[in-house]
């Protein structure tokens, strides 16, 4: 009997380890032989721990499973949700980047190859650097870390830079609230990231890679490190990758709890062992990056999407999407939502469909008040803006951003003045301190919102002015974009701003 219990930390956080133990114990008691695989997550987090049992009807899903249901699961008395891939949330997706996540044993290289892994790298090995970069450009891939910068353009700059050493740095700092795609990918299909980074290395002539991985993700760190060791032992990394005569190696570097270290230049300073202060650009990291050398800095999802582009072809990838937002995006639906999880789909689905149909509305059953898209620097969007298609330009046009594609849902009990204050407080805590509008402005912002909360209506104009100053005068998007959540909250929910209402209402 083959049984799958995810090792993903979202599954572990709700008891997957205890469920796995119970299944083994109950099986031993019954004398049933069990092949228990700790797979990645299928991304249906509301069903975690989601256990799958192999059958002639495919892999049958059960969830959320508790440890005391293990016996019933084995006896067949526990009700199944049916084949996992038929669950509507899953069936509606287009899984390219996450095709293997949840399907395979994350640390089995044999599984990885059986489901298309390494095909892309083998193709890339036969290409020149120019051809590799050209593929990425033709795929239309844009950075998934937030800014949406064309990945091919970035790689071309690094390719054309002359240097004795170049680097591929993977940004796995994933600090945005409401996002967990990087984590899920690294825990569920780590070889994809390794393959993507190796292709990047071949493309631009870089021989060393670093994954800068946040310390808040101990499980992802452990899986990545193990996967890298396995890859190295199997000649997938090292001096002669897949006997190509080309070298590429990589290692994990653990962050230390600073949100701003997700900003690429701050990240590079941190990797170099310095304070994670943002650098002025130019020079771009592509020209002068890690230790002053030409460096690709890309998000986990950008790099993990490279293998499928090389496996299926740039044209295949670019055929998905909307306008200049090509391909698919792993959208993370979180917060107060009924069906929270990771939903990979082509760009273009309207926000409201994601929230209400895919996500099923709020978990509390109350009306949706607003969603925050794109992490702590993203705007709060009210239901009136829910017809906005999920795409870079489309969100920009609505005064928002998609960022790393996290959607956080709030019901009507949310107090938008509290959320605006939190945004300013977060900026004050996480500011790297380099520029005044951000460092001082965020502290003033908290004070100003507190004044509004005490009934000082004149402070509202002050807050707007302050946001203008931060927008215009900040060096990076931390100080520069914090006005998005603050001003969108103020604009769309003016009634929430003012003297605090009595609790006994």
């Amino acid at each position, binding site marked *: 009997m083959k049984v799958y219990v995810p090792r993903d*930390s*979202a599954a*572990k*956080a*709700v008891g997957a380890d205890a469920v796995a133990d119970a299944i083994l114990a109950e099986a031993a008691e019954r004398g049933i032989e069990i092949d228990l695989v700790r797979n990645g997550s299928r991304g249906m*987090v*509301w069903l*975690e721990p989601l256990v799958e049992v192999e059958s002639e009807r495919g892999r049958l899903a059960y969830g959320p499973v508790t440890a005391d249901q293990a016996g019933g699961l084995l006896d067949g008395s526990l009700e199944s949700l049916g084949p996992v891939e038929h669950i509507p949330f899953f069936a509606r997706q287009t899984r390219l980047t996450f095709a293997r996540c949840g399907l395979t044993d994350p640390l089995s290289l044999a599984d990885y190859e059986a489901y298309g892994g390494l095909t892309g790298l083998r193709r890339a090995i036969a290409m020149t650097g120019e051809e590799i970069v050209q593929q990425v450009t033709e795929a239309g891939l844009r950075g998934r870390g937030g800014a949406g910068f064309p990945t091919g353009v970035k790689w071309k700059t690094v390719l054309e830079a002359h240097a004795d050493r170049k680097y591929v740095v993977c940004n796995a700092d*994933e*600090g*945005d*609230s*409401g*996002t*967990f795609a*990087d*984590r*899920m990918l690294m825990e569920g299909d780590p070889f994809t990231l390794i393959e993507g980074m190796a292709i990047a290395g071949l493309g631009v002539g870089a021989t*060393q890679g670093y994954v800068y991985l946040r*310390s*808040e*993700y*101990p*499980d992802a760190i452990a899986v990545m490190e193990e996967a890298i060791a396995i890859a190295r032992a199997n000649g997938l990394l090292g001096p002669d990758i897949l006997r190509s005569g080309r070298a590429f190696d990589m290692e994990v*570097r*653990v*962050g*230390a*709890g*600073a*949100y701003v270290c997700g900003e690429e230049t701050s990240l590079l300073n941190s*990797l*170099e*062992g*310095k*304070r*994670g*202060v943002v650098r002025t650009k130019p020079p771009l990291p592509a020209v002068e990056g890690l*230790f002053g050398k030409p460096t690709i800095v890309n998000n986990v999802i950008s790099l993990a999407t490279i293998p499928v582009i090389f496996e299926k072809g740039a044209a295949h990838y670019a055929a998905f999407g909307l306008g200049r937002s090509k391909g698919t995006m792993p959208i*993370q*639906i*979180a*917060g*107060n939502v009924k069906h*929270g*999880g*990771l939903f990979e789909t082509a760009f273009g689905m309207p926000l409201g469909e994601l929230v209400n149909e895919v996500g099923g509305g709020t*978990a509390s059953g109350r009306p949706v008040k607003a969603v*925050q898209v794109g992490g*702590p620097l993203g705007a709060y969007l009210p239901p009136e803006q829910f017809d906005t298609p999920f795409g870079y330009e489309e969100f920009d046009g609505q005064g928002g951003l998609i960022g790393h594609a*996290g959607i*956080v*849902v*709030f*019901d009507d009990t*949310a107090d938008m003045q509290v*959320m605006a204050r*939190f945004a300013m407080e*977060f900026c004050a805590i*996480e500011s790297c301190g380099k520029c005044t509008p951000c460092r001082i402005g965020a502290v003033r912002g908290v004070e100003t919102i507190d004044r509004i909360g005490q009934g000082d209506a004149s402070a509202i104009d002050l807050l707007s002015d302050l946001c203008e100053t931060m927008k215009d005068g900040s060096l990076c998007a931390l100080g520069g974009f914090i006005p998005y959540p603050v001003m969108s909250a103020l604009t769309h929910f003016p009634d929430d701003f003012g003297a605090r209402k009595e609790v006994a209402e």
Partner: protein
Amino acid sequence: MQHPNPAIDLEDIGALIAPHIEREGPMLPMLHAVQAAYGFIPREAVGVIAETLNQTKAEVHGVISFYQDFRDAPAGRHVVKICRAEACQAVGGSALADATLGNLGVDWGGTSTDGKVTVEPVYCLGLCACGPAAMVDEQVVGRLDEERMTALLRELRT
């Protein structure tokens, strides 16, 4: 800390950081190694690292003080990090955090009087679809409510 800790031996620190000396950008790996061993970065380690990397102690201090993770004093026996970020707030994270701090009689960063539990804020654990979330030492926990948190704390304190 006012007094040098007798349990801290310069040779031990040297051994902890030695495997990282040849790495590119060894500072953070060294600090992580020291903190993993002691639970904080002892004053003595600052000197050893500074000397090894040919930097001033002030520079090493500067790096340590920049990052939330590095402590300059020991924490309680267990560290509970509660997520304060937006997705957890959307499902009652703030009330849970307030109740937890209240029950332990501490503020953020504080340690319960029995020395067993330190509570720290964290800004997202990637468990945003199963919040409110927390991390107890290196164990993640999701779908928390006050009852589960109370049970968890009771376990940690016995």
